[in-house]
């Protein structure tokens, strides 16, 4: 061991055990993107600061937008008193949350109760790190990609971090020591596990095509966005339309938004897992939900809606302007997708628990699986004709849905059966009947 140390000191590093790399490049697994280390560090810090703040501002803007748009959809005004058109309303709300007494009820499990909101908020913020929010900007001779970390397992990272969100809900629910909270937490954990599968499987078709086109590191989100750059027909949602729908639906479920917000269904569970929370802790749950929406939209845009590409508009202008334009395109696409979130909220009623499980396991999962099989099969047999793959995917999804639907109708149990969800029914009797 001493010998090893000596070798390091003398710089040869040959007998040193692991990863020479980790010393010469402390960022280890991150790609250096062809930049000198100091430029990489500086640009990363700047990007992190900008994106983190944009995310927080985005949450505020989203809260305002949601309330105003909801008002518009329901033919009422929404908040319009604080500041121009009510724009300062989120700030007023924030101040209210901050100034409220930070109440910790006596009967809660204190450490987990305090930790839970952060457990939900942190994953929501972490995910954005691997999402490419634009092309690249050229400053002082360095081409800086508009992405915080282009890691070569980008998609897996997103799936991994997304799967952490459930802890905030479950632990918060349990720590609250309240039956409504616990029911909400149980529902939420089952829901999130179920829909995570769809979320992961729906991406695989996209990955397969990107791998054969780009080669190598197709798990990097930047490569996936780049592969959709040529024209509209390369946007993945056209090629993988059923997978896109399945992914979006699963995304709604993961963010606990309205058609799937059983974890906090007001009419049944008071407020579900955050019943016992107030002041800033409640605000953190609240922020996490909106942050999840924003990040979810950004990921969907990257994976399926062409990322920062828009008919070559992203190439207009000089090295700096084009980067800014590409960021603008990405931003606009994300904003449009966020509008869809609100739109869906006031369009679809909440699912019942057994309906939710049926949708996830019996429809979305088979559709996502069929998308994988069909994409692979058609890629080989038709020599990579994307039009045929797109059509084949839609046809396959139709077949799968009609077969499953037909089976469900044929095997429908005779009238008035309580939903049978393994083990849950005893606990769920209030909620789902």
């Amino acid at each position: 061991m001493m010998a090893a140390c000596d070798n390091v000191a003398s710089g040869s590093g040959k007998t040193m055990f692991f990863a020479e790399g980790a010393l010469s490049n402390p960022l280890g697994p991150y790609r250096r993107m062809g930049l000198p280390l100091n430029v990489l560090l500086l640009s990363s810090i700047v990007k992190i600061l900008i994106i983190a703040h944009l995310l927080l501002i985005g949450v505020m803007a989203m809260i305002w937008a949601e309330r105003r748009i909801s008002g518009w959809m329901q033919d009422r005004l929404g908040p319009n008193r604080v500041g121009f058109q009510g724009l300062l309303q989120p700030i007023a709300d924030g101040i209210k949350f901050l100034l409220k007494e930070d109440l910790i009820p006596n009967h809660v499990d204190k450490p987990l109760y305090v930790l839970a909101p952060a457990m939900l908020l942190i994953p929501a913020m972490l995910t954005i790190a691997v999402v490419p929010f634009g092309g690249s900007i050229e400053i002082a001779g360095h081409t800086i990609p508009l992405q915080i970390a282009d890691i070569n397992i980008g998609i897996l990272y997103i799936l991994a971090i997304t799967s952490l969100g459930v802890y905030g809900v479950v632990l918060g629910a349990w720590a609250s020591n309240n039956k409504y909270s616990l029911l909400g937490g149980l529902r939420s954990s089952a829901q999130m596990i179920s829909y995570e599968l769809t979320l992961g499987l729906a991406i695989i078709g996209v990955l397969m095509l990107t791998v054969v086109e780009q080669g190598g590191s197709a798990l990097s989100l930047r490569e996936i966005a780049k592969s959709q750059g040529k024209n509209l027909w390369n946007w993945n949602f056209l090629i993988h339309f059923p997978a896109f729908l399945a992914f979006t639906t699963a995304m709604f479920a993961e963010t606990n938004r309205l058609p799937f917000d059983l974890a906090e269904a007001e009419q049944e569970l008071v407020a579900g897992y955050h019943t016992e929370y107030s002041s800033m802790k409640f605000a953190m749950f609240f922020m996490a939900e909106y942050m999840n929406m924003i990040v979810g939209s950004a990921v969907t845009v990257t994976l399926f809606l062409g990322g920062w590409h828009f008919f070559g508009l992203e190439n207009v202008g000089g090295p700096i302007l084009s980067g800014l334009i590409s960021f603008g395109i990405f931003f606009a696409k994300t904003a449009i997708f966020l509008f869809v979130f609100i739109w869906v909220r006031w369009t679809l009623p909440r699912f019942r628990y057994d309906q939710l499980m049926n949708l996830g396991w019996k429809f979305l999962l088979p559709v996502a699986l069929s998308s994988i099989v069909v994409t692979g099969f058609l890629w080989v047999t038709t020599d990579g004709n994307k039009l045929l793959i797109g059509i084949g995917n839609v046809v396959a999804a139709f077949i799968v849905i009609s077969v499953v639907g037909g089976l469900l109708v044929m095997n429908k149990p005779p009238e008035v059966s309580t939903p049978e969800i393994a083990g849950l029914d005893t606990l769920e009797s209030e909620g789902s009947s």
Partner: protein
Amino acid sequence: MEFTLKTLIFYGFALLTVASGIVVVTVRNIVHAAFSLMVTLFGVAGLYVFLQADFLAATQVIVYVGGILVLILFGVMMTSGRLEMRIHIERGQLLLGAVVAIALLMLLLAVIANTPQWKNVADDGTQLQPTTESIGTLILNGQFLLPFEVVSVLLLVALIGAALISRKEVRE
């Protein structure tokens, strides 16, 4: 012992992993144990990144933290009411278990210390190569294809078995 950023990070993760592992074993509250296990699994994932196994690190978080542990938490909430969450440990059992375990630890350490092949294997000093591709190639294109298929059948069997066991009994 030279302290570089690298060793510091390693010891940080190692401490995190072992300490939270000990908490899993000793803490009385099941949910706290589960939470602590999450920290352990995270620490192991961090060590995987450190060992340049990027794919496995992500898989560890997805499968263990995001899947298995959530299932376990789910099980905790299904089986234990809020009030009986605390469980006691018998002293005698603790003593006996500790003795056996420490004997085992000694054995393992002795094996590690006495196996010369595990020392001084030269590292080729290569930078990180994405492991995803090589793992995929090994599984689907090489000697691990059969185990892979067997494991997938195992998963299917487990899925069906679990559904069958936990199904509500149909009373005619």
